[in-house]
């Protein structure tokens, strides 16, 4: 069997895919597995023995003809066609798209044979998005920043590949460990972040380090990061003169960091690739998570890991962070931070989260849990509006006098109304995105077949909404039970 896996996202996403890829190899020992990545992030595949061939999407080469004023569209298209044909000729039996993007959906459509088993985004023959499986529909509807999903990407990838992860799927790569002359005992600080909005300022890190060394004076800290983060490291060092710092920023290949992180007492840093590398080495991790991040999806997965959320990097507390670093070394744990416990969801937080209801709704829709009791009147009111809209749609769908061609503008308008309701009441967005995504999954077909599929879908939607319908005899809250 020949399998192609697409992971066209960034370094951290590739590392988060390692456990699922290893599980794929474990369950398909005789398969030939190819992994398609971007050249910029190829380093995150080094040491991943689970795949037989790493292929790089030659973006620069494909776009080069379009970089000037001359019309060389035909040449660019020729290069793309040739490239897609080389993938097509591999005749993959299975194509797994772990990149949830328009580009990846088109590549899958183009290279997957008609008989291939496809998971993830692809395209219908009419060019519209085809969401091939339930995991992808969940991803499309509920995953992302500012959404209430609490399933970690590592677990989503494994579910999409239809594998159960075990401890053998974690672990560092089989690579020679480079000796940087580090002491026997040290901590690691990643000075950068995957995006500037997530980055803590150097002076804040410096203060945190000084606080750390008030309690743990004998622990050097190794600074890691790419060449572009050297200036950050220099600024940290300029602001810290009481702490032993070893600056490795810009001195390491990405894969060298595995050895550095594996031998450390702990890694601390923002949301970035080293955090996911620490998950593979099993190194205790402190994640300082700033800005727009859904930590449930992309947080640290080391067995001992903790997260501290700051709304913005400016809210960073050097006292809290430095104190937590010391507590981890002295007591082996961190109090008051979000803790990684494994499982789904993977973290425990002491704070009551305003997304709890929305997450419970997600579990009901996708995992068969009981529908949660609604406590907020705004949600009940949103459901009322959704119910009214849904009733209008169903009436038209079921009316044989209404021609199929006349339904499209109605359905478009209904979609706009649903989206507007979800904007006003984010919790209802879980329901709205669910029905909108399921609509997307209706395949091309005869007008009558599509009409029937839409009718069935809106009938199911109505059943869910009905759980939250206030009646004259309703007592304590509304909504409970299964559909």
């Amino acid at each position, binding site marked *: 069997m020949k399998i192609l896996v697409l992971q*066209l*996202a*960034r370094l951290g*996403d590739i590392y988060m895919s390692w456990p699922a890829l290893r599980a794929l190899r474990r369950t398909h020992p005789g398969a030939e597995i190819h992994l398609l990545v*971007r050249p910029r992030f190829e380093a995150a595949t080094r040491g991943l023995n689970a795949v037989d061939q790493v292929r790089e999407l030659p*973006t620069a080469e*494909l*776009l080069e003809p*379009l*970089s*000037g*004023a001359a*019309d060389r*569209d035909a040449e*660019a*298209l020729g290069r*793309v*066609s040739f490239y*897609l044909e080389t993938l097509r000729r591999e005749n993959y039996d299975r194509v797994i798209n772990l*990149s*949830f*993007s*328009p*580009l990846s*959906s*088109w*590549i899958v*459509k*183009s290279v997957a044979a008609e008989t291939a088993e496809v998971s993830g*985004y692809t*395209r219908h*023959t*009419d*060019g*519209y*998005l085809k969401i091939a499986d339930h995991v992808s529909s969940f*991803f*499309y509807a509920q*995953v*992302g*920043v*500012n*959404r209430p999903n609490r399933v970690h990407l590592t677990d989503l990838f494994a579910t999409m590949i239809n594998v159960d992860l075990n401890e053998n799927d974690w672990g560092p790569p089989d690579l020679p460990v480079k000796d940087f002359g580090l002491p026997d005992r040290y901590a690691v600080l990643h000075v950068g972040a995957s995006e500037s909005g997530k980055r803590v300022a150097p002076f804040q890190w410096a203060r945190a380090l000084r606080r750390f060394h008030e309690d743990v004076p004998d622990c050097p800290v190794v600074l890691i990061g790419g060449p572009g983060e050297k200036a950050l490291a220099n600024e940290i060092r300029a602001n810290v003169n009481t702490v032993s710092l070893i600056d490795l920023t810009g001195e390491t290949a990405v894969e060298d960091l595995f050895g550095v992180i594996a031998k450390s007492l702990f890694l601390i840093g923002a949301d970035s690739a080293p955090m996911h590398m620490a998950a593979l080495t099993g190194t205790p991790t402190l994640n300082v998570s700033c800005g727009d991040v859904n930590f449930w999806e992309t947080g640290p997965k080391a067995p001992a890991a903790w997260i501290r959320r700051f709304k913005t990097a400016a809210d960073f507390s050097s006292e809290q962070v430095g104190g937590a670093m010391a507590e981890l070394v002295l007591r082996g744990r961190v109090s008051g931070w979000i803790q990684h416990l494994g499982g789904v969801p993977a973290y425990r937080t002491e704070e009551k989260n305003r997304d709890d209801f929305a997450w419970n709704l997600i579990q009901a829709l996708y995992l068969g849990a009981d529908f949660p009791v609604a406590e907020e009147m705004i949600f009940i009111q949103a459901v009322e509006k959704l119910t009214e809209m849904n009733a209008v749609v169903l009436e038209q769908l079921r009316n044989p006098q209404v021609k199929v061609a006349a339904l499209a503008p109605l359905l478009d308008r209904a979609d706009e109304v649903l989206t507007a309701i979800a904007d006003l009441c984010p919790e209802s967005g879980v329901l709205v995105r669910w029905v909108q995504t399921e609509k997307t999954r209706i395949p091309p077909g005869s007008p009558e077949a599509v009409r029937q599929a839409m009718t069935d879908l809106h009938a199911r939607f109505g059943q869910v909404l009905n759980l939250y319908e206030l009646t004259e005899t309703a007592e304590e809250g509304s909504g409970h039970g299964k559909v």
Partner: protein
Amino acid sequence: MDKQLENHLSEALKRLETAYREILKSGDLSREGEAVKVLAELIQEQVQNEDPRSSARPVG
């Protein structure tokens, strides 16, 4: 990204989207149409400062 390069790519994107609409008019999607869309999406990522992880982007 260099402004001139961005302009070239944006112009190319418009041409490709027009080409795609013409291809669709002729019936089902062809290999040519797929190649056009792959190229268009590659450009789209560049002019939007390449966000290869687009978990919440609308996919139409």
